């Protein structure tokens, strides 16, 4: 089975939110309420347990020359966000039930019949994608339309996209398409266009890539996402030191104070009890006294 990928191109997105709607409808994702964010026209705000596609509205200082912008009007960058389906996925590594798996399409999939809602994937996702649905108790995120891909269909969002902003296909083909598109944009003078796929980080690349302009942080994408397993060595080393210190500390504490109940009982009164080598005999001995 081919490894597939998304290429989401913010320079082609018109912010129609067809992807958000298509995703909700196909996957039966519950509504997430009427929210007025007060930020731009983006009232979806973020990806979450019930939002697996999210169109970001990045407002920019007026820029002339592209898309017929006049100098008096705000420039818009729209970008449809989605689970990145990381090559080294923090959620997948952290999942203690084995609910989160790598599919034959290379995507990261939460099996809803196995998830027990421990919530550890929520804090190990470096992109803030996975979330636990409060009324359901399980974690949810984009499935990469695993069910549709099983039938050779493209994901609902990609199929519904009217401008080709969301492309879907073989991962390698998507990478080539991205390179070609960026070269074209650069040729047109849009020199700040770039690919965001976290390839140079410990995440090791993503199966959902994005063409964005300028600083990725304006799109709420981390500059240096890290798969949390990179911290494991330091963490366990520290835990081993702590465990050693607790064991050794308590051994020394009891050896030095010869396990006596109070200073009066200790030492001179019964030197034998102070010797750890005769410790086994100490309990019955004191029992006799």
């Amino acid at each position, binding site marked *: 089975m081919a490894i597939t990928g998304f290429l989401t191109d913010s320079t082609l997105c018109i912010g129609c939110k067809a992807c958000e709607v298509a995703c909700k409808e196909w996957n039966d994702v519950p509504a997430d309420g009427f929210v007025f964010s007060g930020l731009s026209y*983006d009232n979806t705000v*973020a990806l979450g347990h019930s939002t697996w596609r999210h169109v970001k509205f*990045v*407002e*920019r200082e007026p820029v002339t020359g592209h898309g017929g912008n006049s100098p008096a009007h705000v420039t818009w960058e729209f970008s449809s966000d989605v689970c990145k389906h990381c090559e080294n996925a*923090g959620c997948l*590594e*952290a*999942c*203690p*039930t084995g*609910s989160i798996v790598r599919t034959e399409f290379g995507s990261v999939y939460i099996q809803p019949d*196995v*998830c*027990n*809602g*421990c*919530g*550890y994937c*929520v*804090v*190990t*996702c*470096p992109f*803030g994608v*996975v*979330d*636990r*649905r409060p009324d359901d108790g399980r974690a949810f995120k984009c499935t990469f339309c695993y069910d549709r891909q099983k039938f050779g269909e493209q994901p609902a969002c990609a199929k519904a996209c009217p401008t080709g902003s969301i492309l879907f296909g073989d991962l390698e083909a998507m990478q080539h398409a991205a390179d070609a598109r960026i070269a074209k944009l650069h040729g047109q003078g849009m020199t700040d266009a770039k690919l965001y796929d976290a390839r140079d980080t410990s995440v090791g690349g993503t199966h959902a890539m994005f063409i964005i302009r300028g*600083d990725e*942080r304006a*799109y*709420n994408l*981390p500059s240096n996402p890290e798969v*949390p397993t990179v*911290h*494991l060595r*330091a*963490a*366990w080393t*520290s*835990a081993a030191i*702590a465990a050693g*210190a*607790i*064991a050794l*500390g*308590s051994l020394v*504490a*009891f050896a030095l*104070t*010869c*396990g006596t*109940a*109070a200073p009066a009982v200790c030492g001179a009164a019964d030197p034998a009890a102070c010797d*750890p080598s005769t*410790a*086994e005999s*100490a*309990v019955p001995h004191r029992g006799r006294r």
Partner: protein
Amino acid sequence: MKVPTATSEAQLEQLRREAEINGRVSRPGIHPPNAPFPTTSYYELPLLKPPVWTWEVPAYFFVGGAGGAAAVIGVMARVSGSSPKLVRDARWTAAIAAGLSMPLLIADLGRPERFLNMLRIFKPQSPMSVGAWIVAAFGGASTAAVLFPRKLADISAFASAALGLGMSTYTGVLLGATAIPVWSENVKTLPLHFGASALASAASALELMGNKEKALHGLALGAAAFETYIGFELERKGVKTDLLLLGGILSGPLPLALRLLGVRRVAAAAQLAGSLITRFAWVQAAKESRK
């Protein structure tokens, strides 16, 4: 306070004329940082999700940690020939803590009835998976240590202590190996911090049960000294919330001073409260600090 000038008043007049004539004004006003044009953040919305964990998880960190350290103290007390009361109290503390840990952890799950799914695999790269196995095994060993007859109880207590070392420290790994900045930036500190906190709470709990062994005092004193150091270290790194500060004072300098003055029972109570508050503070810090 600003002083009205000819320029400022002329600007206001001009603004009014423009609004009257055109129905709109062309000047942009003042841009608050990052608004309306995001540059280095997306309207300053947090990038990461906060932990979904409720009070059960930090409460478990406290109970499980104290129980784990108590099991270790129990074994050391046994081999050094300490009083049978201390050995018995330590084993019961471990067993009761293990008994409380299970329901706390299960209650926090979104689907508690699926708790056993944790034990369908073992995944060394997941601290949560490693932890689930440690808790389960610790629960068994600690229960056996109080229920079984002498020799079997001793063997179980030894197993319980070995697992207890894991119980009192792995929770630091659990928090450290995540994407939450305030946790992962302190990944080396957390297991030591939580381990010291666990040891202090176990020794203090046993002291409050009426055990007067100097070793307990010594351990709690050492833990308080270490916690004082950790507190300064966190302060230096700029990790500070009100709750962390409160937990830090109750775990570090306050019991340290009290113990040096010989006020052991008050110090023990402070250390227990400090350990509990510290665990809540670290979970709370993640909810406050995500970026």
